[in-house]
């Protein structure tokens, strides 16, 4: 990626499932190191947007450029550079936390010491040898956070990343994926107060369309709440 080019550049992005449009004419430009917070009611296209940015879904129309890679043509170039934290933890419930992270570490060519480092960072070292299915949802989310940052990704795509986490767990994971982590971030949120506090840019989606796109300092909570009415 060129030093001056944005980390994310979307122009008229469209995506549909069958005949049903899920995203229509979405345009965004995000600089490296910035945070884009996406608001919108359930079914507004937030998760689909994140999946397109990760190269997991093909855009149907428009131009999408992520970390310098043109999608979908160069989606291979994104592999290993994106940290994904979504509703699905991307972990095998039959394996332990340590086995899951060791598996992902090998796929990302990351040293085993890094597994212990991230387990410790999310406070799961003591429970790392228990099968994931025996852990609470909050603990699974902590391990999923560790997985997302395991390969030190350049871009974090966070789909409601604090779901299931108690306040103590939030304090543990936030240094890894929060604004202080140094990542370029795109995160979805339903909470205007914390979302706006996180954001450099705000994107509001409704029915797959961009209804709000502005610098966070020009948006207030009431404007965000309008998306949900």
């Amino acid at each position: 990626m060129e030093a001056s080019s944005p980390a994310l550049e979307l122009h008229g992005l469209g995506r549909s499932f069958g005949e049903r449009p899920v995203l229509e004419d979405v345009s965004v430009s995000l600089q490296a190191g910035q945070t884009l917070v996406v608001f919108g009611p359930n079914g507004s296209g937030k998760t689909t947007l994140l999946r397109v940015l990760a190269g997991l879904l093909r855009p149907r129309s428009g131009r999408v450029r992520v970390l310098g890679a043109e999608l979908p043509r160069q989606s291979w170039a994104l592999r290993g550079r994106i940290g994904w934290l979504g509703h699905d933890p991307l972990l095998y419930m039959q394996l332990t936390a340590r086995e899951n992270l060791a598996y992902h570490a090998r796929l990302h060519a990351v040293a085993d010491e890094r597994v212990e480092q991230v387990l410790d960072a999310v406070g799961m070292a003591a429970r790392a040898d228990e099968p994931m299915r025996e852990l609470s949802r909050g603990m699974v989310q902590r391990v999923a956070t560790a997985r997302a940052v395991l390969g030190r990704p350049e871009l974090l795509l966070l789909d409601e990343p604090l779901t299931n986490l108690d306040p103590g767990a939030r304090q543990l994971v936030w240094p890894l994926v929060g604004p202080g982590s140094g990542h370029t971030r795109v995160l979805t949120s339903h909470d205007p107060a914390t979302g706006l506090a996180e954001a450099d840019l705000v994107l509001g989606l409704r029915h797959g369309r961009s209804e709000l796109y502005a610098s966070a300092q020009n948006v207030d909570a009431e404007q965000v709440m309008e998306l949900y009415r």
Partner: protein
Amino acid sequence: MSARTSVPQRTQPHVLKATGQARPLAGARSELEPHAPTANPRVAPGFGGALRALLRKELLVELRTLESVPGMSLFAVSVFVVFHFALNRASIDGDLAAGVLLVTLLLASLLGINRLFVADAEQGGFDGFLLAPVNPTALLVAKALALIGYLLVLELVAVPAFALLLLGTSLWPALPGLIAVLALADLGVATAGTLVSTLAVRTRARDLLGPLLALPLLIPVVIGSSNAISPLLAVHPPALGAWLTGSAARWLVLLALYDLVFGLIVYAVFDFLLED
């Protein structure tokens, strides 16, 4: 709500982030550097390393769940018991024995084929894999090798059970030839099965679609292997050398060609099947 789309000002609120002074929650750890993002160039794992990781994960998941191999083995033994009573014969040999053995193994293998990608589809394994800088062919090879492993265990259980419950002749003279044929058949079932499983697992009707796609594709394997095995299971089987130089040779060649062709087809299309 009126749409409001304004070009955002180029704020630099995270200049602070670069200096590590951004806004962690109260009480958050301050050691941020170890988890900071890394820019290119990145190191991708070698094919062998990725293959080992995938295969290890595959076998661990199967060992923890025991969802495929025990079911396949138990199914095969149950079918032999059913045949034992349904055929109303004390023993079988030749064409009939070869047909019963091969069809039973094929049907049992469908159980493994159907479950090959289930854990990946249900637990986000596909997404996790696609986010990693790994050659997709490593996943194909790992799945095919895992399936071959399942088939080997199945045959270790099913073939002795078949000899005990149904076969009218001794299995020992036929064993070297049988192993060769089953090895070629397993390779074909593994490659075609991996293709079918990849296609079926992302559909709602995967339990139905898997067998419907696999059975027609695997007919050449059944034809080739049952014809090759049939003389070995006769009351008076030929010597191994005579069997190899006789009619069995062309069936072995057919099986080898099937393996080669399907291996190339699956290799060519697998990347596309993983994509959206």
